[in-house]
């Protein structure tokens, strides 16, 4: 059986097991959609789009459609640790599905501090209830890093003033899957930047279970809901890269799909923000773009219902979905220079001189190579 066929089988089995669970709603999604004037055809079109987004072959759209109808049975606990709430805000921007559809139709949002109505003791009861009631079955999403210095006392939550470290360990113990939403929960994020005064760490560094990391500061709404949907549909973790990020979203470098890539290959660069080259949409490498070292689908999915992404807005990528990017990618408005490239970038290392030299044959490769050489020397 090839990989896709195996995945399809797995998805089918997963849906079968979901179907055995008691329904949460008396009216089925299909009926509900019909009531809202959404035809079966519209729904299948959505499923096909979702399938394409997940980089799955078209026959999977049947599975996606079926999953959407069953998916409302997954309990979700979302913890906010050392964070800025940007990932919750990104979730609010979701469009496929949007956040109210997510809440009403796909998951049972048991605990999410930014959205839940309960507060204080009642909020804590919700968390405890969900951890017990759905032990082994709930999806755990975590936003924010775990402060570990001084026994974790840089963060306490709840009437019993539990530390973030205690909470994550308790919640992880009963989770069916754990998703670190954003660079803070994945790799420590901004508070873990040198000298990391609170000993902040990513979730995977403090627990022993597998974690899906959604790098990004914040990750796009598409990557958040797409990952939730993947798990709900297939009941397993998606294929992951070396940093445990889903390959469907983080499989390609920003540079690979960048709309300015042609200008890079042609050796056309913005030298100073706001110059004629900036007005013409030239490549931002020389004003610091970290697209060649960053794995994410920003150029294809963009942000805010595909409205834009930083490179379209004329600012280089800052590499926000990579581990330790606050330290390894700074200064953000200067090119890294080859001497600083980390091990991951075996290919990126050669971007400036070699790849350019090869792929840009016939368009003055040597000249471009020396432009880059000049850049490195300036640094």
């Amino acid at each position: 059986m090839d990989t896709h066929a195996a995945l399809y089988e797995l998805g089918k089995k997963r849906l079968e097991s979901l179907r055995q669970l008691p329904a949460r709603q008396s009216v089925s999604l299909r009926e509900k959609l019909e009531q809202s004037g959404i035809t079966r055809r519209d729904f299948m079109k959505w499923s096909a789009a979702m399938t394409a987004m997940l980089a799955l072959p078209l026959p999977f759209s049947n599975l996606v459609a079926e999953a959407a109808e069953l998916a409302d049975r997954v309990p979700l606990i979302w913890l906010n640790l050392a964070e800025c709430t940007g990932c919750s805000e990104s979730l609010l921007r979701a469009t496929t599905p949007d956040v109210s559809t997510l809440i009403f139709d796909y998951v049972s949002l048991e605990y999410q501090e930014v959205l839940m109505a309960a507060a204080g003791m009642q909020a804590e009861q919700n968390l405890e209830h969900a951890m017990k009631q759905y032990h082994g079955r709930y999806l755990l999403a975590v936003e924010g890093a775990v402060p570990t210095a001084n026994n974790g006392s840089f963060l306490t939550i709840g009437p019993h003033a539990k530390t973030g470290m205690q909470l994550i360990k308790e919640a992880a113990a009963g989770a069916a899957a754990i998703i670190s939403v954003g660079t803070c929960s994945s790799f420590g994020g901004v508070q873990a930047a040198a000298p990391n005064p609170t000993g902040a760490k990513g979730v995977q560094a403090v627990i022993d279970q597998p974690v899906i990391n959604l790098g990004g500061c914040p990750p796009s709404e598409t990557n958040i809901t797409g990952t939730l949907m993947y798990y709900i549909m297939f009941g397993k973790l998606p294929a992951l890269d070396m940093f445990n990020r889903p390959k469907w979203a983080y499989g390609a470098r920003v540079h690979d799909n960048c709309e300015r890539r042609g200008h890079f290959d042609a050796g056309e660069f913005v030298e100073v923000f706001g110059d004629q080259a900036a007005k013409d949409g030239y490549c931002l490498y020389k004003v610091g773009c970290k697209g060649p070292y960053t794995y994410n689908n920003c150029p294809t999915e963009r942000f805010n219902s595909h409205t834009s992404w930083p490179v379209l807005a004329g600012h280089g990528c800052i590499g926000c979905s990579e581990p330790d990017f606050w330290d390894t990618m700074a200064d953000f408005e200067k090119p890294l220079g080859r001497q600083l490239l980390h091990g991951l970038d075996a290919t990126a290392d050669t971007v400036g001189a070699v790849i350019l030299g090869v792929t840009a044959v016939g368009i003055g490769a040597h000249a471009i190579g020396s432009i880059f050489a000049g850049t490195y020397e300036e640094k």
Partner: protein
Amino acid sequence: MSKRVVIDPITRIEGHLRIEVELDQNNVVKKAWASSTLFRGLEIILKGRTPYDVGLLVQRICGVCTFSHYLCGTMAVENAIGAKVPLNAQYLRSLMLDSLHMHDHIVHFYILAGMDWIDVVSALSADPAKAAQVAMKYSATPMAAGEGELRAVQEKVKGLVASGKLGPFANAYWGNKTYKFSPEQNLIGLSHYLKALEVQRIAAETMAIWGGKNPHPQSIVVGGITSVRDMLSPARLQEFAQKTAHVKEFIERCYYPDLLMAAEAYKNENSVLGGANVRNFMATNELLLGENNHLFKQGIIRNGDLSKVEDVDPMKIEEDVAHAWYSAKGPQHPWNGTTIPDHTPFIERDTIYGKLPTVDEAGKYSWVKSPRYAGEPVEVGPLSAILVNYARGTKEVVEVVDEFLRQTGLPTEALFSTLGRTAARMLHCLINARNCDRTFNALVKNINSDETTYIQPSIDPDKEYKGFGMIEAPRGLLSHWIRIKGALVENYQAVVPTTWNAGPIDSNGKVGPYEASLVGLQISEPEKPLEVVRVIHSFDPCMACSVHVMDYKGKSLSEFRVDPSAL
């Protein structure tokens, strides 16, 4: 005997906040304490980095008011090195700030504070046909409040209830007697809650047009803005105008009428008429109409006296840490702040829920410092912006405030309250929505003759610089303070809105706005302290903003005093 109520987490805010109140035998709050329970230490992290990266890094202070710190930090650097930002960039920055204000205020009223006013369970028993009639009372052209739409909303929520899984609506204070909307009014509010979830997405898109994304846009640089292509694209400009108009429609047809409805229903409810016991209000310039011309003007009002407005003097700002988890010798101006973290444990004591760790009010109990203006606590936020400009006679502000008071029949004094704070945020949002096209038109006019968006700054490594940025963020006056040496960040401080409002008692025993606002509040059910949550939410707490504030010198973290057994 007094009773202690602990509320942690205060949900539907940004960050981590613990509120404790002490009640007398009549369940009236005698004392209150606000404790911020997360520390991240971003100023330490900033030290030694290039000033050009400051904006991107300080932006991560907050993902809700996601643009404010980015802008303020960048302005602090520009102020320090004397970089003059081109007018086009100033206009675009102002438009992004307008987008943020509109987005943030809508999210606050519906998604964060809404459940304090709207009883979701009561909405289930409403008659949708009658509710559609009720909606006509507050707006000639109501939105998402037709009979069919209201019925659909009701069915949607009934589905959740029938399943026994209420999701985000589970276990809240439903049925509390201080909920004052009728079932029909609750249903209208609930329908607008769902509509707001949709509209806030569009509001965020208006910022993403110039910012590349939201949260955490990425187009501001020291010396200007990078989205020059978007600015020069007529299609992009129109996209902004169109989407902003859509948001404005929601504000006029939902947000404004809902505040009229709230004012009517809640005007005899004590918990919403109090809640403004610090009566000093401060705000700064906002909404750029032309070079050096803002619609909202800076100023400070003392003791609620609307007949006098003073100019804000940034040098009178100091921070006190007597009861905050830092040690310092007396209050300090942000340029000279030397703060050392000094965490101490909670104290176990009896509460209405049994024994719990509680704040050490005699010692230190919050990661938030206590900013003071000339030694006095000050409230900041949309209410301050509205009051300062009402007192200054700013035409656009006076008009909407007077109209709102006329329509609700409330006296001016009612502005000094939880209701006033909530209404002022809506009015602030409305003024932004109605006037940001003036900024937009000024930009379009300017582009005709000038396409500049950036001037290249320079920082001399042999010189020392200091500067500050000051803007009006959605939660109020925000200032960032920087010192630069050797072309690197030498010292950094951010004095943020929530710090002004949420700080603990100072060394003179003066109480800040959060804690003062709760004193005198009667709680109907101490186990379900809805009134406390309602008052605190009216400030729109943003805790991550407020707890990063420190300047760290000379002490290693291993020296902190921590008692893990209490945590």
